[in-house]
Structures are given as C-alpha cells and as structure tokens.
C-alpha cells in the first residue's frame, strides 16, 4: 500500500513539474519528453542537423545523475551487461523512429492527452496495441538473454557522459548546436530544468516508474502498481491544464503534433512493441542505464541514433504529418522487431 502511495505521489510531482517547465519555457506539452529530449541532444551534438531541434536538455542530465546517485546510495547500483546488446541497439533505433512518427514518448503522450490533444489518445491505443503484441511474444518465451556482472566501473560512464553534456551545456562551445528557433530554442532555465530532472531521476529510480511496464504488468499479472503512476501523471496534468486554461480538446492544431491518425497509431504501435520487448519505455531505459545496466545504456544510444537517422533521412514527423520515407521506415521497423521477436523465442525455464 505504502509503495502505491509513493508512485501516485511520484506521478503527481512529475505532472506538476512538467506543467511548470512548460510555463518556464519548454515547448508546449513537452515539460518532459524522453524521446524528444534525446532527439534534441542528438541535434545538440550535431548527430543530425535539423536546426529547430538542437539543445542539450538538462532534464535528461539531471534525471540520469539523480537516478545514478540514488542507486549508489541505496546500494542498488549493479554493473550488468551482455544481454543481446547489438539487438537492443537496433531495437532502440526503430523504437525512436516509431516515437518520432507520433512525436513523443509515452510520457509526452500522457501530457498531450492531459492537454486535450486527441491525437495522443490515438497514440495511446497504438501504444497499448504494441505492448499487447510484445506481451504475446513474452508469453511465448521471448528473451534477449541474461546479462552478467561487468566491471563495477563499467556503469560509471553513462552518468559521466551526462556530466560531459552538462559541461557542453554550460560552456556552449562552438561545435555544440543550439537551436535559434523552433522547439529546440524553447527551454526552461537550466538550473530549474536540471533540478526537476534530478527530482524526477530520484523518484523514478525509487518507484521504477515505467509507462510501458504499467500496461504490460496489468495485462500479464493484473498488477496495477506501475499503472497508478501512469494514471497519476494523467489526472494531475489534466487538472493542472484545466486550471491553467491550457486544455484545448481536439485533433487539429495541437502543439508539436500532427493529425494523421493512422501514423500516430502505427508509430506508437511500433514503439510500444519494441519497448515491451526491450523491457521498458525510454524513461525506464534511462534509469536502468543509470543504475549500471550497460544493455540499457546501449538501448539509449540506439534511441539517440534513431533520432539522428529520423532527422537525417527525413523520417521524423512534423505538424504536416509523416513523410513517405517515414512511413516506409515504420513498416521496416515492424519487420525488424517481428524478426527480433521470432528469433528470440526460447523455452523459459531458468532452473540453475
């Protein structure tokens, strides 16, 4: 019971921080969006050159450092790796292509729904569909194999990478890209965004909040725990948007969104399917990587690579919708994740 209370409080705090970050400068309905922020970081590092989505998002840096320090403090830090890292990398790429066809990760999807964006409800239906496909494979015995302990220091490089990003953000060297216009140019003050990320990281590490896991655990075990966090974000953000007058119900003219229902649905189905097989949404991957899991670290790199490909190859959606190459990429993504699914089904025993 106590744990359920903690995850509800966590969801509520995340929702309030997300609304505050938008008020303080973040793009609309993007107080937090793990996929979008990784995309912005990919742009900041010059991995793609879409000039409107380049920024080193301090929320991500704070989240990782918060989760890392918490895991060290609670002795939950474990340097693990070796569970099909390259497969996870490829899956991360296509998960991101799905997220960017929809324009958001499950967290932004909730924030979009809470602001009345009905396209995100279509995305939610897609996400649930994708997780259900993933659950089907998990029930058949899908596994990417066991991770084994790595050198303890192995997991330190993920938070160290974030520390390097923080240096880039604070010193703004000429080789790091910062958008002059568009969503990448919209951001809350660095110190506040960093602090919000830290709080988010601590809470997400303690509660293991995962938006894919919420749907998955409910379907497989009838377990509501993670879903409570999911619902708390939605309800509190909804109330907040109503109070702030930022609730606009409809499909058209929603901020940083498009109204092509089919591709909102299919993008999130692909992303949900890939994420369910990966064991969690981008948020959970970030936290798990911060706790020392090298496979999750590789998955995050896959997400970053996917974002770079999505913008370099013109696959990412815009307010106009999803481009033909983007649609083809989503279809290829389904083929790849299905292949991964079928190739990794094994009899689940686990007897030592």
């Amino acid at each position, binding site marked *: 019971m106590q*744990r359920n209370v903690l995850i509800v409080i966590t969801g509520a705090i995340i929702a309030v921080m997300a609304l505050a970050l938008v008020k303080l400068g973040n793009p609309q309905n993007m107080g937090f969006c793990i996929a979008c922020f990784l995309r912005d970081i990919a742009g900041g590092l010059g991995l793609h050159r879409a000039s409107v989505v380049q920024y080193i998002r301090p929320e991500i840096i704070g989240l990782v450092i918060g989760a890392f320090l918490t895991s060290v403090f*609670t002795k*939950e830090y*474990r340097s*693990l790796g*070796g*569970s099909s890292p390259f497969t996870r990398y490829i899956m991360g790429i296509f998960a991101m292509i799905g997220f960017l066809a929809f324009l958001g990760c499950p967290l932004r999807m909730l924030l979009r729904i809470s602001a009345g964006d009905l396209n995100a409800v279509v995305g939610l239906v897609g996400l649930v569909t994708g997780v259900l496909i993933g659950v089907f494979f*998990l*029930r058949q015995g899908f*596994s*990417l*194999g*066991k*991770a*084994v*302990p790595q050198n303890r220091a192995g997991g330190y490089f993920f938070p160290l990478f974030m520390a390097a990003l923080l240096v880039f953000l604070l010193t703004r060297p000429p080789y790091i890209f910062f958008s002059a216009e568009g969503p990448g140019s919209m951001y809350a003050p660095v110190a506040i965004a960093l602090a919000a990320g830290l709080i988010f990281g601590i809470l997400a590490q303690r509660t*293991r909040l995962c938006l894919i*896991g919420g749907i*998955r*655990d409910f379907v*497989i*075990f*009838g*377990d509501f*725990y993670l879903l409570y966090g999911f619902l708390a974000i939605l309800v509190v953000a909804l109330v907040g948007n109503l109070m702030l007058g930022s609730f606009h119900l409809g499909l058209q003219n929603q901020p940083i969104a498009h109204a092509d229902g089919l591709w909102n649905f299919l993008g999130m189905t692909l992303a949900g399917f890939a994420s369910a097989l990966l*064991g*969690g949404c981008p948020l959970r991957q970030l936290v*798990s990587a911060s*706790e020392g*899991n090298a*496979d*999750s670290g590789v998955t995050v790199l896959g997400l970053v690579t996917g974002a770079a490909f999505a913008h370099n190859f013109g696959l990412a959606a815009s307010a106009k919708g999803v481009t033909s190459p983007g649609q083809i990429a989503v279809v290829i993504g389904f083929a790849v994740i299905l292949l991964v699914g079928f190739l990794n089904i094994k009899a*689940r025993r*686990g*007897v*030592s």
Partner: protein
Amino acid sequence: MEVMDARGLLCPEPVLITKNEMEKLGQGAFQVIVDTSAARDNITRLAKSKKWEITVEPRGDEFVLTLKK
C-alpha cells in the same frame, strides 16, 4: 526445493519465470535468485497478490527469494 535462476534478466522475465513456476506447482515451495532490486520488488508484489509467502534474503549482490504456499 527447486531453485530458479532469474539473474541477469530484465523485467518482466523474472516475474514471468516465477509466475510459471507458481502455476506449475500450484502449492509447495521454491526459490528464485535475482540480482536487481526491481526484480526483487516485482516478485514480492506478485507473491503477495497470488497469496504466496515470500522471504527475501540478500546474498552479496543478489537476492534469494523463497516462496511458499
């Protein structure tokens, strides 16, 4: 007593292994070894919801979970 090795597996696999074993045994006792606190917590929640008694014993970087019904 059967010992299930769920070390190195990300969620939900440790929970699926435990659930399969619960369903196979119906009642009795078995152990699951896990190496992440997420797996420990998830299996503890599963055990409580399925009315299995669970004891958690830390062993180095791992946790030995004993389930009884």
